């Protein structure tokens, strides 16, 4: 191959590469908004189970706080807080936090807390617990996780926010106590955090109350 034909070959390759890149770029431009909307709808779908009995405005996922570690919520990775409003007023906060003390690795938990501090729903987002034992925390496997609905820091009292084996009020799972202990602890710590930091999560409401 002569030098000029190498040059021509390279040019062909570059031209076809450029054309293909344009094709992909055009498709990306044409689909970007729809894909973002789909992802958002999917995220909202996954959040709804933790919002039982709570009214909310559209744009559920718009008011997101990302708390980088170190923070006082469970876990040492990024904690997400979705602020939920109803008719413009604070209605609830959805926490996506990580319980690090699961039986086989971290458990990612979604915890909905109504503005008055009661739990509006808990769901397990991600876990690797033992199938048939620890995985009963998953709402698709058992109703265990529903027992948090309507609970709050006073109900039961703080010292009873634990599984029965530890003197608390929450059912444990047959053959698995580490997993439920981790989830109960994550919910309790999240409620404590919400109780202490509610006015930081919803600063607008706090300033209105002071006026």
């Amino acid at each position, binding site marked *: *191959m002569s030098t000029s*034909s190498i040059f021509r*070959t390279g040019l*062909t*390759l570059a031209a*076809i*590469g450029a054309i*293909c*890149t344009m*094709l*992909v770029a055009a*498709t*990306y431009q*044409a*689909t970007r908004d*729809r*894909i973002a909307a*789909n992802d958002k709808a*999917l995220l909202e779908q996954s959040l709804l189970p933790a919002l039982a009995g709570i009214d909310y405005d559209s744009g559920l996922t718009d008011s997101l706080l990302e708390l980088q570690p170190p923070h006082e919520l469970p876990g040492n990775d990024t904690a997400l807080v979705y602020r939920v409003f109803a008719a413009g007023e604070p209605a609830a906060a959805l926490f996506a936090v990580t319980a690090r003390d699961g039986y086989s690795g971290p458990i990612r938990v979604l915890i909905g807390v109504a503005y008055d501090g009661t739990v509006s729903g808990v769901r397990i987002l991600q876990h690797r617990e033992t199938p048939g034992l620890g995985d009963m925390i998953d709402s698709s496997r058992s109703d265990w996780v529903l027992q948090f609905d309507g609970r709050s820091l006073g109900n039961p009292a703080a010292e009873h926010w634990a599984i029965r084996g530890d003197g608390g009020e929450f059912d444990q799972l047959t053959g698995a106590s580490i997993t439920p202990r981790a989830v109960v602890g994550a919910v309790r710590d999240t409620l404590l955090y919400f109780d202490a930091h509610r006015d930081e999560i919803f600063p607008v409401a706090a300033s209105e109350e002071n006026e």
Partner: protein
Amino acid sequence: MTAAAWTERLRTGLWKDNPGLVQLLGLCPLLAVTSTFVNGLGLGIATLLVLTFSNALVSATRRLIRPEIRIPIYVVIIASLVTCAELIFKAWFPALDRSLGIFIPLIVTNCAIVARAEIFASRNPIGASIADGLGMGAGFALLLMALGAFRELVGQASLAGFSFADSGFLLAVLPPGAFFALALAVALKNHIDGKPGR
């Protein structure tokens, strides 16, 4: 291109040289996604589109391309088309995209596509190449759908999501079921063609 030539190309892809049944190409997605009819349909259509467009593009550029660089160019063309297909699925068929998961981007590695580019599209005019892409793509898609329908029917006693009974013969939806179903399909084709086993 005459109507007879079109028919001949389509017949080759759909039956005589079916990429799945005869050439046994692209078996990884074929075995992995055919656990339900809808999955087979989705991946079948995506593969059909990518194959047709890649054949058309390879054929259109065949005179410009020196043989030394043809493989990188096929790779660039196929990868771009698959990326476009993936974006389109994500935008308009998000549920299907989630259930097919990694197998949409993995169409890139479906050797049926690069095989048709190399064997057919690089040495035939654009019309014939499109016909070949459509025929081969449809042959692959129909096989995916047939295997998906069969495995879903036997394994889950349902079809396209409508269930007839509580449970089926679980093995059919597990990986071994894919091999059994494909073997049955290949055997059936050979039987119909009257080809004795070698």
